[in-house]
């Protein structure tokens, strides 16, 4: 088993499984967020459930954080190892001749998404932890909608979010289908997986960008 943990294939599988887990999380996150555009009351009640359900807070949230950490720590480790494996650079290297840009630059799209996560955690998670555990404010199932909309008031934040969603889209464009290949799943269903990848990697980030822009241009009037 120790050989398995150190092996290049096992590391690929860890990247694939943690990546697919994050894809599932993105789907769930998007499903809740889109209700903020459709029906604020539903958004409030779902957000309140996510914020106060012990299973979500103390089991699923730590698993999610672990998933994110595993994905980016392993990503960095592999990138460093891969750079070393080349042993110096070519005088001329025509990467565009044989592989798409997105597949060759996962580390950069990933780094932008990671930087976004820092901002996103600061914007929502840190605020939430302070509200619940530092200020020890009472439960208020109606606060989530206006808190979210107000976050998108500054133009700079909205733009940073939209840029991050574009890079997330590029990351998913290669990563989603690639994770199936890493797990050894390349068969007659692969074309369908590739189509699903393209749909998912456009629709979900575009949806997130739409939500951010919608709230920016439709502020709550007091």
């Amino acid at each position, binding site marked *: 088993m120790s050989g398995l943990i150190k092996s290049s294939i096992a590391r690929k599988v860890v990247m694939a499984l943690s990546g697919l887990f994050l894809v599932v999380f993105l789907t769930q996150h998007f499903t809740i967020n889109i209700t903020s555009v459709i029906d604020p009351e539903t958004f409030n009640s779902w957000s309140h459930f996510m914020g106060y359900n012990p299973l979500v807070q103390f089991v699923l949230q730590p698993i999610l954080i672990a998933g994110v950490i595993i994905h980016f720590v392993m990503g960095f480790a592999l990138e460093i190892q891969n750079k070393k494996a*080349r042993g110096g650079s070519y005088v001329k290297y025509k990467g565009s001749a044989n592989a798409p840009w997105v597949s060759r630059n996962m580390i950069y799209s990933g780094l932008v998404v990671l930087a976004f996560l820092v901002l996103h955690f600061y914007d929502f998670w840190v605020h939430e932890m302070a509200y619940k555990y530092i200020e020890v404010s009472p439960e208020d199932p109606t606060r989530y909608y206006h808190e979210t909309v107000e976050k998108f008031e500054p133009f700079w934040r909205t733009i940073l979010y939209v840029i991050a969603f574009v890079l997330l889209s590029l990351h998913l464009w290669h990563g989603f289908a690639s994770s199936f290949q890493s797990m050894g799943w*390349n068969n007659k269903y692969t074309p369908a997986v590739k189509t699903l990848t393209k749909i998912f990697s456009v629709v979900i980030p575009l949806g997130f960008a739409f939500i951010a822009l919608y709230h920016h241009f439709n502020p709550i009037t007091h």
Partner: protein
Amino acid sequence: MKLYLKIWRQKDASSPGKIVDYTLDGVEGDMSFLEMLDILNEELVSKGEEPVEFDHDCREGICGTCSLQINGEPHGPDRLVTTCQLHMRKFNDGDTIVIEPFKAKAFPVIKDLIVDRSAFERIQQAGGYISVNTSGNTVDANAIPINKHDADEAMDAATCIGCGACVAACKNASAMLFTSAKVSQFALLPQGRIEAVERVQNMVRQMDLEGFGNCTNTGACEVECPKGISLTNIARMNREYLSASLKG
């Protein structure tokens, strides 16, 4: 045609290398890339200079000896050919051509454009074979029925000539396409199943020990492979490896 060549010159493994410029006139379109280098070397020798060292053997595209990173691509801009089968008609009069050795930590330069690809031999020796009883009771391979699809897939994998273009093309210098082809050619056949668990584990362990990078599924190897070895072989190796690890 007249060409401007930028060629990597390196005295030996421990010396630093550098690009040296050469101008070569009188190149014909129906010459192979290696014949073009032969002409350059004849000129260099006649001037008393040291010729450019490069690997070559069969010059028929089947031995896997020739290599070269040509204008940023292993075996040059053409597809499904080795450097010996690349013709100068693919280039134009006045072109600048950058010629470098395949670059990977596991493929150290021996001299100029020649690299040491014995890492591939060691991966093969770690499990790229089947043990056959040669005591006189050998069973004819054809006595075991094998379905056409599996036989074809195994044969496709077996066409890998071990040239190293996959490693040279991969941004991570990964040897997964080579290793997976050598695993697949046995994994698909009943004769290969007997040692399948040890084979994939030993070959992957050796591949990692040699210092090759990790596959990130860019697909560059498949595009540049002169034999068209498919990425499906890498998926098969991953499956074989995961199931072997779980078994033992």
